[in-house]
């Protein structure tokens, strides 16, 4: 029978006990007999909560992570209250202070750290003990000592205005003491805060009744046989009854140094948390990894996992790569979050900052190459979860920096993906939950596109795509494998849009099948066909070789497919203007073809729904109206308000502008649908400001052109492209923008995404100032597209294709 190896831990604090938990979780209980040395006479408790014990909000029992019973249940020998005194590596023995040897096969040092005692007079009594009234703040015993001494006292001082010092101050206040924080540096918590945040925190502390003394170097603790006060290097003094020293921590490395292991600032370990000796590991505050030591709990959890993976053999490749330090805490009720650096270091580092001292709010982010390298949030930390995640995973930040500091408009993103319930529906169109997305990543889909293809998340209206992408990145732990096809115009041809356009022109490719032959090795891809057809039409106008199979069914039959396989028919009705004769005609058609539903559309037109495919050509012939293109990835419609003819508020003639716009752009293929509107005054009755393109009349006979608006699955007010004086100018600049969009947007990218992606400044430069020298060409392309327009409903009768509209064919024999 295989005998178990002996695993000994020196240290029973948070790092040691957590490491043992991780080892047990990997079946280590059957590999090792575990013995733990613990300085303190108890099980393992949560040191972070000591200040809560001090202030009475927790009882001692509340903070135990591993009570003594846990050790018994897991067959761990805990030598509580027994200090390990030395290691004899050659004999593989650890000696207790009383000389008792403890043999080991593997040894883990988790001795943690201890408080730093700055040099000062009067700290100790002649016998070496602290002067009565002097305390450090590290253990439950310290806590008890402070609590009992504070009884009946009036004034306390805390030396050290770092995180722990302020926590101690908060604890002391609850004993009714007047508390002074004495800090050597120029601002509080200088590890986590910059001077600005430190100053605001100081004010907040003072409002809560804590006096803060900065730039104070304590030289002497006054009092003969007990603490009476402090003297500072500047000659000043402070009367106090007790003093808690919280001036930082120092790793406990002595036992490792004693047996010859390499020490720098702490015990040096490699990526598997091993020291120089293959059988000895170190973990937690006493360990130094790649030059870093850590005093926060999150890195320690990560180290414990790697150590456990490695030592149990459950993952021999496990490696610790260091931690990015971020912390979120409450100092006397003031919420603080801090991550990374607190001041910019490179000249290119971007600083985004908000300060509102009166309300105690301070926010500062340091961004390098689009990624977060440092951040401070004080007072309002509602964005902390998101920012800490972005910091930790090194994910790219959104361009709109304001959104990093505040929730504006969008639903608040207050839950992190960790916190988010697995059942939370992410894609509301296809009903895909967070859990499904995560499962998909676990099954090997390592990028957003692969996950979307597999789950259909983001494949409906598309408004959740960015959230899906973020969840995939999170689930991959930031290690996404980029799918190069995300940069392609269509997935089946490995070229970006500019590359594709160049290749199409160079090889004179005029049909979709020719593009597949020349640029995709002859491999047809169904999903890529409509995008290619749209682009070719845009580039070649009437010289485009139309292959109907490349079109989605809607554009193949010039009508919009419905859930039962019937179609909807929307005739053109520019500006939403109709006439009694037209209405009579539509009514007759609806009767004649038994159209089940006649409805007004959102685009100010009339929709005949439920038309059989076989009836489509006849319906069009009988309507004798042009197609309204309500089915295409194309220019759709331009709605209009009443404008200046009848409306008493109208400033401009929105109706005739809408008619001109329809005449100019009807039937244009585009990367996605384009919905337009004109409004005769800024009351915006026709909602022109939230259209792909809109024109709004303003006082003085002028028109504002809006682009990139949306009021569908996403809602966005458009950006003002320019203000012009005439209908003709509206047409010219709208046309230029439309052509620029047609040539540069990805397939199925709506204008609101396109405008956001490029930025309104860039688009203004191209369209208004001709920064790329292409304005004239864009105008020419628009004219050519206009010349190539043919009403598809008339075309059907001009050149009928056999059985195109037959829903069912009889067999020959």
């Amino acid at each position, binding site marked *: 029978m295989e005998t178990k190896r002996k695993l000994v831990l020196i240290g029973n604090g948070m790092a040691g006990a957590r490491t043992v938990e991780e080892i047990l979780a990997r079946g280590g209980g059957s590999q090792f007999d575990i013995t733990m040395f613990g300085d303190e006479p108890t099980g393992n408790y949560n040191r972070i909560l000591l200040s809560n014990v001090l202030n009475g909000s927790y009882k001692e029992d509340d903070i135990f992570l591993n009570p003594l019973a846990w050790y018994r249940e897991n067959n761990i020998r805990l030598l509580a209250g027994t200090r390990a005194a030395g290691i004899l590596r050659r004999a593989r023995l650890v000696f207790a202070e009383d000389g008792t040897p403890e043999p080991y096969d593997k040894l883990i040092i988790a001795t943690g750290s201890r408080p730093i005692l700055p040099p000062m007079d009067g700290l100790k009594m002649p016998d070496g003990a602290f002067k009565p009234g002097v305390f450090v703040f590290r253990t439950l015993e310290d806590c008890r000592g402070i609590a009992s001494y504070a009884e009946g006292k009036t004034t306390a001082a805390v030396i050290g205005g770092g995180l722990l010092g302020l926590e101690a101050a908060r604890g002391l206040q609850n004993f009714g003491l007047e508390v002074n924080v004495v800090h050597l540096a120029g601002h509080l918590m200088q590890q986590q805060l910059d001077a600005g945040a430190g100053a605001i925190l100081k004010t907040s502390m003072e409002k809560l009744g804590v006096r803060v003394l900065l730039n104070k170097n304590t030289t002497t603790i006054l009092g003969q046989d007990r603490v009476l006060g402090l003297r500072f290097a500047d000659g000043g003094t402070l009367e106090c009854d007790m003093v808690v020293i919280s001036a930082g921590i120092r790793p406990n490395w002595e036992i490792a140094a004693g047996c010859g292991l390499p020490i720098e600032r702490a015990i040096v370990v490699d990526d598997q948390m091993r020291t120089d000796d293959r059988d000895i590991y170190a973990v937690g505050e006493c360990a130094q990894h790649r030059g870093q030591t850590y005093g926060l709990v999150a890195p320690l959890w990560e180290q414990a996992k790697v150590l456990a993976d490695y030592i149990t053999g459950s993952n021999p490749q496990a490696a610790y790569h260091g931690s990015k330090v971020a912390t979120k805490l409450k100092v006397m009720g003031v919420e603080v979050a801090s991550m990374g650096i607190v001041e910019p270091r490179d000249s290119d580092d971007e600083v985004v900052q908000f300060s509102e001292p009166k309300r105690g709010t301070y926010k500062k982010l340091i961004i390098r190459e689009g990624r977060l390298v440092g951040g401070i949030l004080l007072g309002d930390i509602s964005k902390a979860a998101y920012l800490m995640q972005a910091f930790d995973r090194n994910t790219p930040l959104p361009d709109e920096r304001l959104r990093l500091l505040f929730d504006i408009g969008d639903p608040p993103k207050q839950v992190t993906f960790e916190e988010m319930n697995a059942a939370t529906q992410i894609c509301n169109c296809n009903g895909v939950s967070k859990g499904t997305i995560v499962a998909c990543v676990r099954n090997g889909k390592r990028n957003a596109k692969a996950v979307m*293809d*597999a789950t*259909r998340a983001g*494949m409906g209206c598309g408004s959740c795509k960015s959230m899906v992408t973020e969840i995939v990145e999170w689930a991959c732990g930031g290690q996404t494998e980029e799918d190069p096809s995300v940069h392609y115009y269509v997935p*089946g041809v490995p070229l970006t849009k500019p590359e594709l356009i160049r290749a199409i022109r160079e090889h004179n490719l005029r049909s979709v*099948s020719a593009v597949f032959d020349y640029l995709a090795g002859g*491999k*047809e*891809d*169904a*999903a*890529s*066909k*409509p995008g290619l057809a749209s682009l070719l039409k845009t580039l070649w106008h009437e010289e485009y070789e139309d*292959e*109907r*199979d*490349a079109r*989605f*069914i809607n554009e*193949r039959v010039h009508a919009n*497919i419905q*859930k*039962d*396989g019937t179609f909807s028919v929307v005739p053109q009705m520019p500006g939403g203007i109709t006439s009694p004769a037209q209405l009579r005609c539509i009514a007759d058609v609806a009767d004649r073809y038994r159209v089940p539903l006649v409805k007004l559309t959102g685009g100010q037109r009339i929709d005949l729904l439920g038309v059989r495919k076989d009836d489509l050509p006849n319906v069009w012939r009988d309507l004798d109206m042009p197609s309204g293109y309500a089915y295409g990835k194309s220019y759709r419609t331009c709605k209009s308000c009443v404008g200046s003819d009848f409306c008493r508020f109208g400033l401009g003639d929105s109706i005739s502008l809408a008619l001109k716009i329809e005449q100019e752009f009807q039937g244009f293929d585009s990367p996605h649908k384009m919905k337009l509107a004109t409004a005769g005054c800024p009351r915006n009755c026709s909602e022109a400001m939230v259209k792909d393109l809109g024109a709004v009349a303003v006082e003085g006979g002028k028109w504002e052109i809006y682009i990139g608006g949306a009021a569908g699955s996403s809602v966005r007010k458009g950006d003002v492209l320019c203000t012009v004086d005439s209908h003709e100018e509206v047409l010219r600049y709208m046309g230029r923008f439309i052509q620029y969009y047609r040539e540069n947007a990805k397939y199925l990218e709506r204008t609101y995404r396109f405008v956001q992606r490029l930025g309104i400044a860039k688009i203004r430069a191209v369209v208004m100032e001709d920064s790329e020298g292409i304005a004239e060409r864009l105008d020419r392309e628009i004219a050519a597209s206009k010349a190539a327009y043919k009403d598809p409903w008339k075309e059907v009768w001009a050149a009928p*294709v*056999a*059985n195109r509209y*037959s*829903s*069912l*064919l*009889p*067999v*020959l*024999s």
Partner: protein
Amino acid sequence: MGGTRGKPILITPAGAVMTRNMAELTLCPLSAIPPGEGRNFDVRGEKIAVFRTRSGGVFAVQATCPHRGGPLSDGLLGGTRLICPLHAWKFDVSTGDVLFGDCGIRTYPVHVDDSAQIVLHLDGVVR
């Protein structure tokens, strides 16, 4: 109409009696289906979608999508891969395998004869 015991028979529209193993049905000339498209055929009450790929292959499958009954012949075809027009389930029309979605589709044997007619093998088509 007559029958031989234990040997099911079919009657073609021309009236000739054939055993089921031999049964074939001429659907239409190849040219009736544009390259890369599909059409529906009424095969004795059963609706079948027939596709002609751009490389000249002809394939027959069930006419409606198993998901929500979408008309598969209106789908987009790339090679032998078909996308349903309603919710983009994907199938391979040569095998009936599902490429995206929950279940596959039925296929029917079909070929193009010497006179460029599309011929359906009736094996298993008619119950």
